[in-house]
């Protein structure tokens, strides 16, 4: 007779069979020794990756034009960060789905004004140089319409930008102080002083690299290096590592969504991937409570293999 309330994916009959000696402390000790030896062996054989951090100095020396163009976009507010939106500024739309937009609800919390934080403040921190000082004053006293006429004159000519003899050249005469600002910022970057200025905005001690990292992320240099290493978001980069080391293989599913539609084409792709993963994570956590899902192990019958001795004995 079948006991009515018994659910094989939820209940277990009480064990009335044999108990056998089993030394869990010995098992744990052996496991620890094995893992320790394996760790040392893998470390000796394979070492570990350590690709040196890039700096704004390395970037602007390796590719001064990319740097200078990025600096213009920070000044005129067309860069990725300037258009980011929350939590950095009001420059762009927040991600979301329908009325769900936590990014918008949270608002601007880490305020970044790319023109002042990335360009003007660092330049102002430079020792007084008459030309730079005049350019900064000219910029500060101009109306925002004048400022944008300067930057658009500069930006429309910057396809022809050249870098010669330690000078950024752009063929335009309608750009007001912008050529001086961009040239001086580039020189400052190439000397390493911009790296310092961006972090010391937080004071003497700092452990916060938000500003230099955001600035770096606006150029194409960092992404170019990363793409060579297969680290790009559209290259399953989240699970990859620099060099030939294994990476965070456990992120395979998270990074998978970024490769397929609609996630890889939506403006709210990040939010949708996150939402999808939260739902799947909730499913994993809740497996014991989900009818159907919790019967899968009974259906795939791997358990018959694991407990084969038991079933052989009990079915004899």
């Amino acid at each position, binding site marked *: 007779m079948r006991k009515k309330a018994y659910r094989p994916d939820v209940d277990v009959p009480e064990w009335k069979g044999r108990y056998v000696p*089993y030394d869990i402390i010995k098992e744990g000790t052996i496991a620890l020794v*094995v*893992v320790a030896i394996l760790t040392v062996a893998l470390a000796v054989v394979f070492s570990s990756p350590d690709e040196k951090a890039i700096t704004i100095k390395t970037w602007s020396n390796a590719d001064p034009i990319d740097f200078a163009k990025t600096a213009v976009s920070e000044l005129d507010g067309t860069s990725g960060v300037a258009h980011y939106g929350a939590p950095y500024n009001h420059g762009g739309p927040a991600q979301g789905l329908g009325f769900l937009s936590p990014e918008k609800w949270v608002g601007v919390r*880490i305020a970044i004004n790319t023109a002042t934080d990335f360009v003007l403040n660092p330049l102002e921190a430079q020792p007084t140089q008459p030309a730079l000082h005049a350019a900064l004053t000219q910029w500060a006293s101009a109306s925002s319409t004048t400022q944008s006429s300067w930057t658009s004159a500069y930006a429309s000519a910057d396809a022809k930008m050249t870098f010669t003899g330690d000078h950024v050249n752009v063929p335009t005469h309608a750009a007001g102080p912008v050529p001086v600002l961009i040239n001086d910022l580039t020189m400052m970057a190439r000397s390493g002083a911009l790296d310092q200025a961006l972090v010391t905005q937080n004071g003497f001690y700092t452990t916060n*690299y938000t500003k230099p990292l955001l600035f770096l992320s606006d150029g194409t240099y960092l992404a170019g290096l990363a793409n060579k290493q297969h680290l790009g978001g559209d290259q399953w980069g989240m699970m990859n590592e620099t060099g030939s080391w294994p990476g965070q293989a456990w992120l395979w599913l998270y990074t998978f969504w970024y490769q397929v539609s609609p996630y890889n084409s939506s403006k709210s792709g990040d939010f949708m991937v996150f939402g999808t993963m939260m739902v799947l994570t909730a499913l994993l956590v809740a497996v014991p409570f989900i009818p159907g899902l919790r019967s899968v192990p*009974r259906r795939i019958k791997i*358990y018959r293999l694991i407990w084969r001795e038991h079933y052989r004995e009990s079915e004899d």
Partner: protein
Amino acid sequence: MSTDIDRQWTSRLRRSVVAKLPPDKLLPDTQPAYVASWIYVFGVTTMAALGVVIATGCILALDGPQWWHSSSLGHFVNSLHLWSVEIFFFAMVIHLWGKFAMAAWRGGRSLTWVTGAITFMVSILTAFTGYVSQTNFDSQWIATQAKDGINSTGGGAFFNVLNLGQMLMWHIVLLPIGAVLLTVLHVVMVRVKGVVPPIVETVELSA
């Protein structure tokens, strides 16, 4: 007859702990006969790997977050830390597959599964904060990429992956404490309930 001593919070706590987890349940010297498969060693292996991860992380901490870039000993310790993490996840995933295959949540063990799954998530977050605390190219790239995902949830305003100090604190203090506490809870629940018996399709009411 209940005495003052019996009613003490202290003695009540002791009684209930001892009732739930008597010493021979906490450290049993036998297991039911069905506990006879290599799949059972992966929980313990995960625990062992967690121990090695923490020990190597502690050595890395001794000389500060940038030591390993300039010292070959430091780099070696970093390698130990990285590879123990790989072993940790390796063992944990096999453990998860195994427990799933055994439907090891049966018989009032659902919370054991739930704490295990949450530990998995916390471990992923711990590893992630470690990757962004490396102070090298990898961490620069991972942080600038990951910020978009986290910002889209609104979380980026409070959990700023570009803030090295914040990430390092989470990586070496808050998350490891969380992972260890969850692991202790998980393993204590296993000991309280005992190892799950084999799947039985139907139960005869006779005999």
